[in-house]
């Protein structure tokens, strides 16, 4: 326990954090979605972002990648702006954010993870195909490469998204509710993959909705309700008191 703590202190003093967020505010039209967030994500951890609906969980990870306009503040990825560090980050959007009736197969979606490395003009080739196939096998969907994405189950679709992120071979994974509404096999597969990634020193940040499993799956938690409620190792900050603070409705009303 003490060792755990001192390790993080060392990080704070010397090393550069995978993600540093300084006084970040994001506003949608006139409504604040995130208010003055100040936060570091420690390397090699499985990090959960929790909070009630509309707390700005998805907005936080989108703001890291510059997918939403930042009103104030700054985000650094390994000490530099995100646009210089794209290759170190993989994004797993919410499954519901895309149209699964799109005419394509599982392998093709995974291959999209490599478009960033290909850059403009260069086309996917046999190498990207091979890499994509490997990643599909890692998530247990090797036999589904040619399957239309619309014919996959919800859990399989989610695993395709995870495979796409694996194909990017990043240092940081930003995942938006990858365990939401998936079957048991998918949850197990994804968690064992993430466990391995953490052992390799990767940082995984996940928006998570199921409070029951937070202390079981994660090392570190960020509790959010438009402003930062608490952040730190699970054992220290994932307390009833902080949960009450994060999930009380009053705070949201007062911000309005």
């Amino acid at each position, binding site marked *: 326990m003490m060792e755990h703590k001192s390790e993080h202190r060392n990080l704070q003093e010397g090393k550069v954090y995978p993600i540093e967020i300084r006084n970040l505010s994001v506003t949608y039209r006139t409504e604040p979605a995130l208010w003055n967030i100040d936060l570091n994500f420690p390397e090699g951890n499985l990090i959960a972002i929790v909070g009630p609906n509309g707390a700005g969980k998805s907005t936080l990870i*989108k703001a890291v*990648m510059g*997918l939403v306009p930042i009103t104030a503040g700054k985000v650094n990825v390994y000490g530099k702006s995100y646009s210089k560090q794209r290759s170190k980050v993989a994004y797993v959007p919410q499954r519901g954010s895309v149209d699964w009736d*799109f005419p*394509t*197969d599982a392998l093709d979606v995974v291959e999209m993870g490599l478009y960033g490395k290909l850059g403009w003009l260069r086309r*996917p080739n046999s190498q990207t195909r091979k890499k994509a196939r490997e990643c599909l096998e890692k998530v247990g969907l090797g036999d589904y490469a040619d399957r239309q994405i619309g014919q996959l189950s919800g859990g399989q679709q989610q695993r395709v998204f995870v495979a796409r992120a694996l194909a990017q071979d990043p240092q940081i994974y930003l995942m938006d509710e990858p365990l939401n509404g998936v079957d048991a096999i998918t949850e197990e597969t994804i968690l064992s993959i993430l466990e391995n990634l953490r052992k390799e020193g990767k940082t995984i940040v996940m928006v998570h909705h199921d409070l029951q499993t937070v202390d079981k799956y994660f090392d570190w938690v960020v509790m959010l309700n438009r402003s930062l409620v608490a952040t730190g190792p699970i054992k220290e900050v994932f307390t009833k008191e902080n949960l009450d603070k994060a999930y009380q409705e009053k705070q949201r009303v007062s911000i309005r």
Partner: protein
Amino acid sequence: MVLEEIVTIFFGIFTDYTLRYVALGSAILGITSGALGCFTVLRKQSLFGDALSHAALPGIGIAYLFAGTKDSLFLMLGAAVFAWFGGIVTLGITSTTRIKQDAALGITLSVFFGLGIVLLTYLQSTGGASQGGLDRFLFGQAAALIETDVLNLGILAAGCFVVLIVFFKEFKIATFDSAFGQSLGFPTRYLSALLTSVIVVAVVIGLHTVGVVLMVSMLITPAAAARQWISSLKNMLILSAIFGGISGVVGSMISSTTEGMSTGPIIVITITTILGISLMFSPKQGYLFQYIRKKRQYQNNSKTISSISKETNPRS
């Protein structure tokens, strides 16, 4: 007898000078709008395409007012500028007000179209007979296509396809998962704007053949038909282009058989027939095979149920 007639019409493409250019122009439109229409459909912007084409109409009138010629290049330029403008107005309404996209599309579509009609009728009443040709852009008049028109259309279409082929991968990711594409560093917003611009060019090509009112069906229908058969984006684009091209040629051939039969509407009816056939008979999603599959499954299920109930309850 009938076969003989069909053969004669078909060879008309090679022998009849007018029909050749009509068919060629219609085919160019069908191929271009067929391929690009796939993106319109997949991005769920079908009505956006409709608004774009209607918005092009006042552009034709204004281009004529300023340039004073019926030179097709000038008119197409005016049409393109206004189609673009109509698109921007629609996006502007949805992003700055509480008006939703369907209402915004309705507003631009009808206002621009109304403005276009006012301009064209004004020009017709003041300028005498020489301006009479402008109203052909309402429903198109492929029969009036001449060699230079076809050449212009061909160049525009080739431009569209160059952009489409060069940015195919980028267009695909911007359409399927725009936020993810953006996270990879592709400026998906600019890519969407580029894609819209290319669709505007397709709309402009269509002004001559099917006109502003029917243009939208040249974008949507081939793509919808192709989707019934095809399960990859690339092949969907190719098949949709083929469907569009075929309907262009067949439509202009049919209309050439009868005096005064408009080419544009016939092309639209042809492509809609292709859609109807696709909806009925495509192996995976067609009504017919779905019906057969369901019936078969129902029979299997009832067989299984009856055999189970016999096993568990042998006395009955």
